[in-house]
């Protein structure tokens, strides 16, 4: 837990990840889930990691807390969260950090919450564990948290079991649990994917509000670009285990400069799209992570691909001060008009 030197020009990034790579090794094959991910996140910022299934976004998130199975998963690269070098922590130090500095919420609250304990007990247990206060004080804190996440009738809900709550309330309870020790970083793995539209928007608004109030950094993983549009400050687009585009939300959505991002935006069905127009699709399907193609992993599906794209992996190219894209043709793409997705 050695403190890193600060930067007096800008606040030190809350999260710094360099060349993170995760491999799942079994006798049959090696799955390269994450292949060299690097990014930094400022405190109090919301970073959305967007990708489809197989892009490595959930694995990246779990690597930040070292939640991956120890024997099968091989991590390399460096991860710094706050003052902690995550790779260097011992098991005990790791359990100290989890829950207090870094917290996580998941897609399925039913599996993340323990079904045999009441909500109040679960939150109180976490508080007692990390802050060492009495159970009574912890229960009071739990009540405050339930009020914070706007659960109606919080006193009654303290004594409720997870299965007695509906999906949206369980999700809020999970958020309360995650916030119980005032983490500086919240990791969210598709928490709203399983929720109805009317509930999803409530939870997203809640998250945004809480994030602002508590000054927390949030890394939010999703496959839905509109969710990112709703809450993100910055966006990282992942494909086949690499970040292919990284920038502010407006830059990436309005001025996309990677063919994959452009393709995703063009094929997303949203309000203003003409009904008769055939949707432009990205041909083919994502690569098998056991046998990645050489060079740029998107090249087989890319309409701008040229032979040189398969020779080496493209390095991040800066497009604008805070906007980078991993494509050999990045600047050429930004100069052409981006598809008009805001109808």
């Amino acid at each position, binding site marked *: 837990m050695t403190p890193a030197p600060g930067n007096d020009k800008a606040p030190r990034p809350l999260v710094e990840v360099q060349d993170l790579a995760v491999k799942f090794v079994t*006798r*049959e094959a090696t799955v390269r889930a994450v292949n060299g991910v690097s990014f930094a996140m400022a405190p109090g910022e919301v970073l959305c990691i967007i990708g489809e299934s197989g892009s490595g976004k959930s694995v990246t998130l779990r690597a930040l807390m070292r939640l991956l199975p120890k024997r099968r998963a091989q991590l390399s690269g460096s991860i710094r969260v706050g003052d902690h070098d995550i790779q260097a922590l011992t098991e005990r130090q790791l359990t100290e950090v989890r829950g207090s500095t870094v917290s996580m919420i998941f897609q399925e609250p039913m599996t993340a919450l323990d079904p045999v304990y009441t909500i109040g007990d679960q939150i109180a247990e976490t508080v007692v564990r990390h802050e060492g206060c009495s159970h009574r004080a912890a229960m009071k804190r739990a009540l405050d948290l339930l009020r914070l996440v706007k659960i109606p009738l919080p006193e009654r809900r303290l004594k409720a079991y997870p299965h007695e709550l509906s999906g949206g309330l369980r999700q809020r309870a999970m958020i309360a649990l995650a916030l119980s020790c005032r983490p500086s970083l919240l990791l969210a793995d598709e928490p709203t994917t399983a929720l109805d539209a009317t509930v999803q928007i409530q939870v997203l608004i809640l998250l945004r509000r809480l994030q602002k109030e508590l000054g927390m950094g949030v890394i939010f993983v999703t496959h839905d670009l509109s969710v990112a549009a709703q809450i993100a400050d910055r966006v990282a687009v992942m494909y086949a285990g690499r970040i292919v585009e990284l920038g502010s939300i407006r830059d990436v959505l309005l001025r996309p400069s990677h063919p994959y991002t452009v393709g995703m935006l063009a094929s997303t069905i949203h309000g203003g799209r003409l009904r008769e127009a055939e949707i432009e*699709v990205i*041909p*083919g*399907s994502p*690569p*098998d992570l056991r*046998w990645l193609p050489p060079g740029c992993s998107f090249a*087989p*599906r890319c309409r701008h691909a040229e032979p040189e794209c398969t020779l080496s992996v493209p390095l991040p190219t800066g497009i604008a001060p805070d906007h980078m894209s991993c494509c050999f043709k990045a600047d050429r793409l930004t100069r052409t008009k981006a598809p008009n997705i805001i109808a």
Partner: protein
Amino acid sequence: MEIAASANDAPALRVRGYWRTVGYRLRYDYVTLFFALVILLIALSAIFAPLLAPFDPLKTSMAYRLKPVGFRSFLLGTDELGRDMLSRLVYGGRMSLLMGLTPVVLATIIGGTLGVVAGFVGGSINMLIMRAIDIFYAFPSVLLAVAISGTMGGGMSNGLIALTLVFIPPLCRIAETAATQVRGLDFVEAARASGASTRSIILTHVLGNVLAPVFIYASSLISVAILLAAGLSFLGLGVEPPTPDWGLMLSTLRQAIYVQPYVCALPGLAIFITSLSFNLVSDGLRQAMDVRI
């Protein structure tokens, strides 16, 4: 048409077939392979017993009673009536394997069919079958086997019937659980939606998916069956003397244990090794077949 082309551009890689993956996993599972070899040896020695046994297993000899291991040409000693242990063990293997495998096979067929029918049809038929099965389940298997076999009088065929009856309930239950689970799956609904008959749906869709868990469970029952069969014989409810049978041999050699401990332990050892081998192999098979791709 470009729509048609797009799905083929990057077809999912051809994965190794299911059975080949099972084979691949087994190839590195040395424990399972070793004990499978042991089973093979036991089975071969049982089948070729007449060729392997140096003596007639039934020939008694008052002069050479309870001789130790390696006495003259009796490689494993003799029993209390002077019969060659090796020959009796080798012939006894036939009995034990028979009494171990037959009930399981029969119970799988009967119990499995009952279970699949109960699971798939559901409703009152399910209740009828399963509650009847539960009655049998209430008894500990050993007691039940002893009770049935004792009531019917001893003997090999009664022992087989008793053991089959003991194993029907668990196999029925496994099959019913599997069938109920499969019944709720989308592809079975789709089969119903296409207007197929119940019989066709069971044969084509349900059976194939139920067979695996039933087969694995049945293979784990073989070791139990061998033990139970030996137990029945030990109690005098199975095979009748002088037929060589490991359990029976254990029983008759019991009194002589202080005279020739090693010789008397041999049938027990045989039962133990056989049962253990089946147990470990079935476990290894379960792990190899549990391939969730």
